[in-house]
């Protein structure tokens, strides 16, 4: 059983996803148990595989025992293992949380929700662990299609924004597939390790440059890198609270991981046209960080503010990618982890407040700290981490990004990171002020003072508190995380 761990990460959620609607017909409680088991199995397998990769070196798993480059292989190296652990962990946490939203629904809607959610999980996990660029495209489409479905289940406005997301997302996927076509035409191979070897003598050719740009544009659309972020704000604002924490937390990050994988591992950051392409990415990302932060300040809807902040935070990852040195890489990967956890936590909080009060507008958050103390505590940690106040996790990833920028003498990026932290502070302190300092109107106040019920059901409160704690834990344990895992993940570092 143990030698099959890399396959189990993906196959268990995929299989349960297919069974979900059928199981839901017989018993929704059984469905919930099965769904949680699937997410837990894939989390445990991911942890096991990461442990193996850290102690014994990268794990190459040949599917159906077909040796690469002919067969499809799964590769668990420290980077993909870490991403798989992150994705499966957040999937499990958000799955625990969804129950309260789904309990009132009929068996069919529950079954379909679980099916789409587990398919999304399987697709994203597949993207992280696969070692084959076309297989990655297939998993990309599996995850995207299920995300369209999940977003569309949030009502009519969500359906319109999901349709827009379908159009834009498919353009992204087509660009990516065309890029893969170029790589295949140039090298005759689709296996990542094989591509790395075969591309080395060809990196000065313009065909490789075109492939690079096509893949960058495709994944840039999918990860909402400014100015390709048009689909994101509406999709995040209208989608149902049961699904959006996972989509917002993980999806764009996995796409960013794919870009890191291409530029740091397949092309190599110092070869041929890569530095040129990366420089363009850096400037675009820097511009995106500032503009999206300013847009976030202008929003009155809490979820929409978080959506624009997502665009800005993806810019940080792009910035780390563009630096192309070790600190930049560590900063980018660290920020992928941090931002996945904090954005997931903040959207869980938004869903919790919606569940309790039915409100999403920031002005309705008055005196929320007394109504929902634990939830708002988690929100406070998430907000501090977004701004970058130590010892929360967000500070350390920004720290490594700044170190990377200084190493390359790009002081303007240091200015951008600090300026955007200030902008982050402005829009998060606006919410903090509402929640902690403002007094609620008298009529509303009487309502919640008499309300003796707990702030949220345990299945919602526990995930929120766990993720809030994670932000602190990742921040405090940053040193072992960086030196034991992230340095190993850097190409050529560690093993």
């Amino acid at each position, binding site marked *: 059983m143990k030698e099959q761990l890399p396959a189990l990460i993906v196959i268990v959620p995929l299989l349960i996803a297919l069974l979900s609607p059928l199981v839901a017909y017989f018993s929704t409680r059984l469905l919930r148990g099965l769904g949680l088991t699937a997410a837990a199995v894939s989390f445990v397998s991911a942890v096991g595989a990461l442990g193996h990769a850290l102690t014994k070196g990268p794990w190459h798993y040949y599917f159906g025992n077909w040796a690469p480059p002919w067969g499809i292989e799964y590769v668990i190296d420290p980077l993909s293992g870490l991403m798989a652990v992150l994705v499966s962990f957040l999937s499990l946490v958000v799955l625990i949380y969804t129950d309260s939203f789904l309990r009132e629904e009929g068996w069919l809607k529950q079954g379909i929700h679980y099916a789409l959610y587990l398919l999304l999980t399987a697709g994203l996990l597949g993207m992280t662990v696969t070692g084959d660029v*076309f297989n990655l*495209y*297939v998993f990309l*489409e599996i995850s995207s*299609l299920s995300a*369209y*479905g999940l977003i*569309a289940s949030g009502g*009519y*406005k969500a*359906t*319109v924004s*999901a*349709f827009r997301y*379908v*159009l834009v997302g*498919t*353009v992204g*996927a*087509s660009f990516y*597939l*065309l890029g893969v*076509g170029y790589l*295949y*035409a140039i090298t005759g191979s689709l296996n990542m390790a094989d591509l790395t070897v075969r591309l080395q003598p060809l990196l000065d050719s313009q065909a490789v440059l075109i492939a690079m740009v096509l893949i960058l544009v495709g994944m840039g659309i999918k990860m909402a890198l400014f100015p390709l972020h048009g689909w994101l704000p509406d999709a995040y604002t209208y989608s149902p609270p049961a699904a959006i924490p996972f989509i917002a937390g993980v999806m764009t990050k996995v796409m960013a991981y794919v870009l890191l994988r291409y530029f740091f591992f397949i092309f190599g950051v110092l070869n041929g046209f890569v530095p040129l392409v990366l420089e363009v990415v850096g400037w675009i990302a820097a511009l995106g960080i500032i503009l999206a932060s300013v847009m976030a300040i202008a929003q009155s809807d809490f979820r929409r503010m978080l959506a624009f902040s997502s665009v800005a935070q993806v810019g940080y990852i792009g910035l780390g990618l563009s630096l192309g040195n070790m600190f930049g890489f560590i900063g980018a990967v660290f920020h992928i982890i941090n931002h996945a956890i904090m954005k997931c936590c903040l959207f869980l909080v938004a869903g919790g407040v919606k569940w309790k009060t039915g409100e999403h507008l920031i002005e309705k958050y008055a005196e929320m700290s007394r109504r929902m103390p634990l939830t708002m505590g988690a929100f406070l940690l998430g907000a501090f981490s977004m701004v970058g106040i130590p010892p929360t996790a967000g500070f350390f990833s920004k720290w490594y990004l700044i170190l990377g920028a200084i190493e390359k003498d790009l002081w303007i990026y240091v200015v951008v990171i600090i300026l955007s932290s200030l902008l982050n502070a402005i829009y998060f302190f606006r919410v903090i002020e509402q929640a902690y300092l403002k007094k609620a109107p008298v009529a509303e106040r009487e309502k919640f003072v008499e309300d003796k019920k707990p702030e949220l059901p345990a299945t919602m409160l526990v995930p929120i508190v766990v993720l809030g704690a994670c932000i602190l834990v990742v921040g405090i344990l940053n040193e072992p995380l960086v030196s034991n895992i992230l340095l190993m993940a850097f190409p050529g570092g560690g093993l």
Partner: protein
Amino acid sequence: MRELFTEHLIYWLILFLFMLGPYGMIFKKNLVKKLMSMNIMQVAVILFFLALGQKTGGTIPINLPGLIGAEHYINPLPHTLMLTAIVVSLATLGVSLGLLLTVQKRYGTLEEDELLRRMNQ
């Protein structure tokens, strides 16, 4: 000139099809037309792969008696990859048509300007 027709022309045509997609998605106001443009773009990528697999004088990749050597057969791999891509594009089309049906039922229109007006009411 001969080289253009035997080698490059197909790629220019594919490029034209590929760019037709974004053009239609940006400038057409009807959502179904946007969807069709999206599908044209996917088809362009599929054709690109198929053109890669083609070989002058090659035959279908089934082992024929007496015909030995890779130069006599076209490359089957792009075709198998594109079978998967066709399935993906079919699924995308199905999902987006489903979304459009819902939109049509609720708002009664698929023209973008009218839709935005009715959504904001």
